[in-house]
């Protein structure tokens, strides 16, 4: 999967100092996450990705859009970006304002990635 642009994007987030964790949920519902901090275990990150998906869906149902969401917490933020093909990226970042521009650039890069949309996972054997 080295040539998978989503995986490459996930790997690239390691270079951004403010990123604590990240994830991508593809249109076929396959979710990949990476954690750079012990308080963000990958199993829980997948649950958070599920919560983000539910939230974005609910907002679209309310005609409030949801292509770019930001969840602001006391000690950090969760940014999400949704591509036109439906894939969603998540970045959990600290509140260091010096990384804001880098986070924005990472999300814009995710939105610009060129990728063939995979088919839904095969069912059965």
């Amino acid at each position: 999967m080295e040539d998978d642009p989503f995986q490459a994007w996930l790997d690239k987030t390691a270079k951004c100092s403010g990123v604590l964790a990240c994830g991508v949920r593809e249109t076929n519902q396959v979710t990949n996450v990476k954690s750079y901090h012990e308080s963000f275990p990958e199993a829980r990150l997948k649950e958070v990705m599920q919560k983000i998906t539910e939230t974005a869906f609910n907002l679209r149902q309310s005609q409030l859009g949801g292509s770019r969401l930001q969840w602001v917490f006391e000690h950090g933020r969760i940014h999400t970006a949704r591509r036109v093909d439906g894939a969603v990226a998540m970045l959990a970042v600290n509140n260091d304002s010096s990384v804001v521009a880098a986070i924005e650039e990472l999300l814009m890069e995710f939105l610009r990635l060129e990728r063939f949309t995979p088919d839904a996972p095969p069912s059965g054997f």
Partner: protein
Amino acid sequence: MTPAAPTKAARTRRILLVDDNPDFTVAVKDYLLAQRDPTWIVHTADNYIEALDCLKVNTVDLVVTDIKMPVMDGLQLLTLLKRSRPSLPIVVLTSVVTPENRAYALQNGAALILDKMEVASNFSCIHAALEATAEAPAPGFKGMLREVGLTELIQMECLSRKSSTLEIKGPNASGRIYISDGSIIHAEIESLVGEKALAKLLGLKGGEFHLTPFKMPSRQTIDGQWEGLLMEAAQSLDEESVQKTAEATEPAAPPPSRAGRHVEEIVVCASANDILYQWQAPQAERRGRLLDWLWLQSATVGKLLPGLGRADRFEIAEPQARVVCLLQAERKVFVRLSIAPQPE
């Protein structure tokens, strides 16, 4: 006003009873002293003047006030005391517990409302209630402030339609926010005034603040919905961060402009069933349900990733619209703004 001295230097607490019926205050005082002697020091006052005089010379842990009193009633006294001593717990004791009295007292910071008839027939009920109130941690915004705390304080002042002057002292600058009848009418810090000053004051990372009685400013520089102003200030801070970082790194795209933004809809609620304020919000209850749901989702995410801490707000950004939701257990705010397309 005769304090009864404790018999030993135990962990004492001072209580001030304010009631124009001396028979009642003496009875309550005698009962409390009998119950808690020596830990209670009980002061009594027949009216608001004696009460204020007592508070000038004594540090009191708890005030219990009747409502029906001449000149200034207990609810007015409550409002007055909460302005100067926001962390002082105040119990309202009344023989007329109406929904209006109860709502007003709770909205203005009463820690507890006791039915005088019940207290008179059973003094033991007041003991447990006052004990719990005096033991309760001081509520409110005593001490160092953070951005969120200051915003919450302004929200409460505005929602209560109060008039006050908020004096804020940061590490390198000090300023004021003037709130008149629940509307922010002026802000100033150094040479800045108006919305820019408000944004700068809300962006202070630490300092001290004092809520003082309202004084009319020399001019009014702010005229807008306070919810929108607070949202704008919060977003302005975010954008400022982006701009500063961009300037420090490389010439990039210009920061998003605030020009052309218009508040389209505002909902303030405690819950979906308790809409406190709405403006141009025909779907206020639906927004309330969404806020409740977002708050629960935030709590779940916060539990999954405890390193993030408490949820503060949720933002939706679309090319031509933005929604900001403040998320707190007791107060939730929904603001939707439209953004006019910027010319190329």
